[in-house]
């Protein structure tokens, strides 16, 4: 019930107030949306959040694999190039579980942290790809640069989504409050990634080498987006298993 200050100068509001006070049924009350009780409803909303985030990551992964295959056809028709994927991804420093057991062995907080790290590590490189390709004039490059920009935005949105999920989980007491360090550690990565890429790659002077670096970057990103999606699914089924696992 809301109390409103009496304003004798305006008649309609006075009438409204009178009605409000007189008629109890007119008063507005908040009612819960779901009828399962507080905890049940919270879990329900968490599960919905997870679903949203997972869908988002799936879309992101789809975009990345599309772009990667297009790049493969366009720039590198011959597949017999030795060592073309010999470069390490700049995110390889982040320890990620590479099989199911390892992923299950990780604690929830750690898993969440890994996800956030990965997402944090990819925002800048993608925008770099976008910028470097935007200067070109061919249609494919402009198309790829738009895609790269789109993916960069998605990474950012996904990251904020996962952060919200983490907050909710912390709220519900499912994970501890040790995630605050993620953002700070993630900031260190871009510089390292850029430095590593600078070390690993020759100066992107020629078009071909630049394309190659883009291609490898996309290859890495495709893999990492799949990791993110898988980890999110595992996290969901660990935390809210009754909602579609």
């Amino acid at each position, binding site marked *: 019930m809301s109390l409103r200050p009496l304003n004798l100068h305006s008649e309609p509001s006075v009438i409204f107030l009178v009605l409000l006070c007189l008629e109890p049924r007119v008063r507005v009350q908040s009612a819960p949306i779901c009828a399962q009780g507080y905890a049940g409803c919270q879990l329900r909303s968490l599960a919905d959040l997870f679903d949203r985030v997972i869908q988002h990551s799936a879309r992101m992964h789809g975009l990345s*694999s599309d772009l990667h295959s297009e790049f493969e056809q366009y720039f590198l028709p011959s597949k017999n190039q030795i060592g073309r994927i010999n470069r390490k991804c700049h995110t390889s420093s982040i320890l990620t579980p590479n*099989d199911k057991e390892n992923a*299950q062995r990780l604690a929830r907080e750690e898993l969440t942290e890994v996800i956030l790290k990965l997402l944090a590590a990819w925002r800048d490189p993608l925008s770099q790809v976008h910028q470097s390709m935007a200067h070109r004039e061919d249609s494919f490059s402009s198309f790829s640069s738009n895609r790269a920009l789109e993916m960069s935005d998605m990474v950012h949105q996904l990251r904020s989504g996962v952060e919200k999920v983490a907050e909710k989980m912390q709220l519900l007491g499912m994970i501890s409050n040790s995630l605050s360090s993620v953002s700070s550690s993630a900031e260190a990565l871009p510089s390292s990634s850029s430095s590593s890429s600078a070390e690993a790659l020759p100066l992107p002077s020629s078009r071909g080498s630049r394309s190659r670096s883009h291609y490898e970057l996309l290859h890495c990103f495709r893999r990492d987006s799949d990791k993110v999606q898988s980890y999110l699914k595992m996290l969901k089924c660990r935390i809210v298993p009754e909602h579609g*696992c």
Partner: protein
Amino acid sequence: MRVVTTMVATIHAQFLGVKKDFDMWRDAGVTLILSLIFADVLESARFSPPGKPKLTGCRSPEKETFTCWWEPGPDGGLPTSYSLYYRKDNSDTVYECPDYHTAGKNSCFFNKYETSIWVNYNITVMATNALGSSVSDPVDVDVVYIVQPHTPENVTAVVYTDDDDDPFLLARWEPPRKVDTHSGWITLVYELRVKLEKGDTWEEHFAGQQKQFNIFSPRSGEVYMVQVRCKPDHGFWSEWSPISYVKVPDYIHRERSMWILIAVISAFVFLIFTWTVKHNSVKRFLLPPVPRPKIRGFDTQLLKSGKSEEVLGGLVIQGFPPTSDYDDLLVECLEVYDEEQELVVDGKDLQEGCLKSKSRSDSDSGRGSCDSHTLLMEKCGGAKEGPPTVLNGKQGQAGRGPLEKSNSHGHRLDAAESPDETNGSLSTVFSSQQQSHKPSSHSIPEIPRQCRVPGNHCPSTHQHDYKESLADAACLGKPLAGYRCMQAYSDHNIHKIGHKREATFQTSKSTGYVEVQKVEQENMLIVNPIAKEVRDLYHPEPTGQDYSKVNDVVNDNVLLLQREIAAKNQVAGNPTENCPHQQAGKPAIHTAVPLHYEVCLASNGYVTQPQK
């Protein structure tokens, strides 16, 4: 080398010149040389290092293990061994396949401890034999993208009936055994396909992540075949599961049975409706009769039979022209034939008309109008021809003259001759203003119908049309056959009676019966015009003042008129009496009319000719 040595040995032997031993040596050497050559040749054709094997593919059924297969190349004739080597993720460490047997021949199986996801495997196969080895082209594999699960398991399809609703097919299945979907490691999507056992095409349905599917409205009594397959997020579709059969029991769609019920009930209602309401009205409503041209009384069948008379007879409308009380409106045509004095005929046309012949059979009931001048004449003419009128058998009396008069209409009397009193000539007759004089033949049953005449309605209406009021042979009208033509008198001379006096008496427009006022000079009647309502001429026993009955015929030339009411006329004459069956009439004879010829007074008061 050996060849050379042998040759050298041979030459040496030759040089040594051993005579008798040389042949032996020579044979042995040749054999040796030949065998060596042969062996050498053979050897170079059969053995070689192995050809390049080829990796055909790698698959992982559950994203935890995977298997790779290869194709051996030509093996070079020697036993060849294959070995698979791989490198992980750009490291330089080369590992060899741990398991060559689990997955069959020419395969390599990686168990879950050796399998890493999101790691790039660089795999090669090497074939080795005694002569050499060869390495296949390398293949990069990331396990995530080579997942192809097994088929879904426990695929069941049943017919599910939910209370009274229509049944539907419910298909259920489970994920393949090894795939771990509970932990979220793999997310599977399913696809189902259905086919009628008799049909040819499969109907595919995408089921998403659910493990059951409904197929609604299956055909009753049919057998269905169901198959399911699955696929991970990014991977390959599995094979189709083995077929599951399901038989649908016989049933009728609820909706269809409802419609059948509605149709039956409405048909029933409709039937009741058509029977309760009259047949005809419904029939008329649904199929209104198409108006067709039809002549009433015209029977086409009869026409076809050729009897035209009967057909035409049917066309005659009985009772047309409409008559009312003009039954007795028969105006008798009194033809007075005066030998001495020709009656003046009024109007030439009349005369002409009389000469016209008239067709006898006139079946047109609509013909003729009172007003027609010519018609009148025609009638006259026709009459002259001698229509078969029947005058109660009195036809043949031409000689006598026309008289006949009948009605004892006071006004008319024409006496033909009055031997006694008159001079033998009777002047006239005048007309009774009655235009429509119709020679009445009260007893004329058959009369040529043509004589229609100024017919019945004439008296009432169109009198002015006729100047010659008198008679003419006008027919008249009415009754019975409807057209009586008084031309009954045709046998006799029918004259138009002139209008000598007409003007005098044409004051009134009514059917003018004229009252006889008095008789002068024994052969003249003076009459008074009477404007009264039309009287029915054909009335055997007229009542009323204006009519006079002839009571008695005296002296053969006098009519005794009988007046029951106060009589105005007084006529003197010599009635003649010649009739055998004359009966004494009623008393009170007030008038007498001189007659010129024999007449008979019939019992009913009418004057007739005596029967001789």
